[in-house]
């Protein structure tokens, strides 16, 4: 476990800035303590300092995970955000897309969303913008990159589900699969549902 190097930090922040813009500082300085990012086995973990102290005692080869995994660095040093980061990114998302209830279920199970399925969308969202997808109950579903749509009004644009977001390779039984927003379960302030395009 080690802190991120400059390079890695830059890469990661660049990626996150696509979704949350410049609000990165909010992630680090939280009211309930200082959080930081640590790199371990090519994965970036978001931990509070209290946990960090205890984790420092554990040798590297025995440490499996700490806090929340935000994403990982690939072999070519690109950073992939994981679904587990959604809870932290969603509150600060700059561009949001809301899906209608009908399209939501289909989206959850991996299909593209046509423009007609969009309920709301933040202004000025350009193509290939990283967005956080919400259900109509303001439940964040996933963060995605937005594909071309508004080319022709008449044409149905679409939001592709670029697999931008991966997920932790849990064991088959535990891996979070597609999750849907369940409206009755809204819990204020916490993104309830995450769509994970993943098939175990």
């Amino acid at each position, binding site marked *: 476990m080690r802190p991120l190097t400059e390079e890695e930090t830059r890469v990661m922040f660049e990626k996150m800035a696509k979704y949350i813009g410049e609000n990165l500082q909010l992630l680090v300085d939280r009211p309930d303590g200082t959080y930081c990012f640590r790199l371990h086995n090519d994965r970036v973990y978001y931990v*509070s300092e*209290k*946990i960090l102290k*205890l*984790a420092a*005692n*554990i*040798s590297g080869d*025995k*440490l*499996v*995970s*700490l*806090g*929340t*995994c935000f994403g990982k660095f690939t072999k070519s040093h690109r950073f992939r955000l994981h679904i*587990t980061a959604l*809870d932290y990114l969603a509150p600060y998302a700059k561009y949001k897309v809301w899906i209608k209830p009908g399209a939501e279920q289909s989206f*959850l199970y991996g299909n593209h969303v046509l423009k007609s399925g969009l309920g709301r969308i933040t202004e000025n969202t350009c193509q290939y913008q990283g967005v956080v997808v919400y259900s109509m109950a303001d439940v964040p579903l996933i963060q995605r990159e937005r594909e071309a749509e508004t080319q022709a009004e008449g044409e149905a644009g679409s939001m592709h589900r670029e697999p931008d977001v991966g997920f*932790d*390779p*849990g*064991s088959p*039984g*535990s*891996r*979070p*699969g*597609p*999750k*849907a*927003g*369940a409206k*009755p*379960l809204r*819990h204020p302030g*916490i993104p*309830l*549902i*995450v769509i*994970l395009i993943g098939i175990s």
Partner: protein
Amino acid sequence: MGRKLDPTKKEKRGPGRKARKQKGAETELARFLPAAGDENSKRLSSRARKRAAKRRLGSAESLAMHKFPGAKPLPGKLPKGISGGAVQTPGKKGAQPLHHGTQGKKRPALTHSSEEEEVEEEDSEEDGVLNQEDLWGSEDSDADMIDDYGADSDSEGEDEDEELLPIERAAQKQKVQEAVAGGQWSEEETEEEEEKGSLQSCPQKDDETEGGLQINVDEEESFVLPLPGEMEQDAQAPDLQRIHKRIQDIVGVLRDFGTQREEGRSRSEYLHRLQKDLATYYSYGDFLLGKLMDLFPLSELVEFLEANEVPRPITLRTNTLKTRRRDLAQALINRGVNLDPLGKWSKTGLVVYDSSVPIGATPEYLAGYYMLQGASSMLPVMALAPQEHERILDMCCAPGGKTSYIAQLMKNTGVILANDANAERLKSVVGNLHRLGVTNTIISHYDGRQFPKVVGGFDRVLLDAPCSGTGVISKDPAVKTNKDEKDILRCAHLQKELLLSAIDSVNATSKTGGYLVYCTCSIMVEENEWVVDYALKKRNVRLVPTGLDFGQEGFTRFRERRFHPTLRSTRRFYPHTHNMDGFFIAKFKKFSNSIPQSQTGNSAASTPTSLDLPEVKGQVTPKPEGSSQPAKKARVAMKTKQQLQKRQHPKKASFQKQNGISKGTDSGLSTVSCDTKSQASSKLQDSSQPTQEIRGPKVTKKLKQQSATLLSSKKVAFWKPNGPPKGTDTEVPVLSLSKTQDTLKPEDWVQPLRSTRGTKKVKQQLPAQPSKRAAFRKQNGTPKGPETPAMSPLDSSQPPPAKRRKSQSRGSSHPVLS
């Protein structure tokens, strides 16, 4: 642990062989009630009526032709049979207590004739007849064989009525049989069961007509244990029904052994037979079944075995980090799940009765709103009661259900270290914790036994030890046969090591904690009470109530073993009584961070009188630096002596007082050694542990209070420790001191005894052995300390110890003292 049986994937089986629609009780009984004949007569076709007439005629003939000598009384018995029929038919159609597949085969046609009066109601009885026909499936062929009666041969060729006839015939035959002496039955049986000629448990149906109670009595009385030779034949082709019946018989006999035993057969033969039968019937290995027979009384045993055949209900636990139970229940009900709250004892549990969607794949599950968890797995975390901002260690955490429960109780504050030795299963922990939104957890992959070395000082520790799995047989039936004596002992050994490591990882001086919960999903005493008892002897811990108000108490004695009386505060759960997986939970509180020195062979078991002070002295002198054993022995001897003899030696007493043994602290054990050690420790500030130092003063303080005169002079010799006394218990420090400082050889306190008892001597002693003490201090060992301290007041003349700690009195060691 993984769920190997997925109850949601159970295949639905169609109606079985015996499933038949019944028309209802009225129609069933109508056969036997002549009053209804008028209505039903209309339903008979003309041919049926002719047949009926023929039968009536034929029955008279058949009676004469019937091979059974008792045929003639049949007409007389008919009314009885009929009247009794109403009572018996339900039995016949049901579990067939009167009738066994093997024995029912040959029902003479007499029974048929006896029911001819009810033939008119054949139509209405079809269904019932069909039912019976199934049960007596082979009866038709037999009826053919015994088809001496012309009426029967006619009826067989016909259609629907045909079904009635054999059954009716069978019923009538049965009645006749019952009327007849039992000898006939045994004849039949021997024909069928030649290989088990001596078994006559079932045949005694002749008494059935005389009433239910008598039937049972007769059966049991006549139950004869098959000879061992015949049993071997049984093994080759076990007839489960027969075995089942035999099991019931034997249980019945054993319940009232005095009156129902067979002459010449001992109880152990019955038990042996029962064990074999149970093993065959429920597919257990002999070893495990033997263990279960030791554990449960017979009636419970059968229930337990039955409960293991059936899976427990699915339960889930709401993730309160993300939702509330009410909301989750509503959402799941909307999806089509039939559920209920788990019980009064759980605020987050839900039990699922059935579901139209897979419970493990709903969007709510994937969003982390709930976790599939067994009801018994929620209990240890409830017992642990983690508080916010604590440091918790979960030593064997996979697949993460308990860890996430801990995190949700702590509301994501504090730190949890979730550890497991199995890398594969750790992945599931990672997945589950991320899914459920747990952020305060570190997941590590250590062997649990490495723990205090890696990191220690936790407020609470949860140890869900790997076990033999005998409590979750319903989830994993392979346990029935693949567990052996060696497996159990290996598990027990591992559990003991893990438990000791876990205890060492707890910080006893934690402000809010100092607790450890040990739990297993096993019901074996070797893995539960024995391990707990072992830990009580080896470490400074005591058992505290778990906070669970239901569940069976743990054993304080089992066969030849005796455990500490506080084991009553542990809890056992069984599948057949609580409808949850078998479980065992024990909650410890650690009262001292020091580790008692091991005293092999001196564990309280040694009798107080075994060692004499002079002996101790003798031991001490030769090798003060050598093995700690003589020192320990001496110490033990000292303590025991003190207690038993009630300070027969004034010198000793005074010596003890010298050392600052305060009776008030009730740490009798530590007494002499304790004090001197404490003194030594205080002296050696660098090496002594802070706790020890702190405790030292406490002890001395107490001493002052208690024995003013004696101690006054000697107190001077003793050091006043630095720092304020710490710890909750004075006893604890004293104990720990005594335990940790193995070095304090009897020398220290013996010599003063011998000699002038002057403080000077002691002083001299102390500086003389700083190195040794230091060396010893670091040694760990099992203490005898905890036990001996229980020894109450050292001096008879002194006021009794104010605080008597039950926990210290290890039951087995010093009954006299404790």
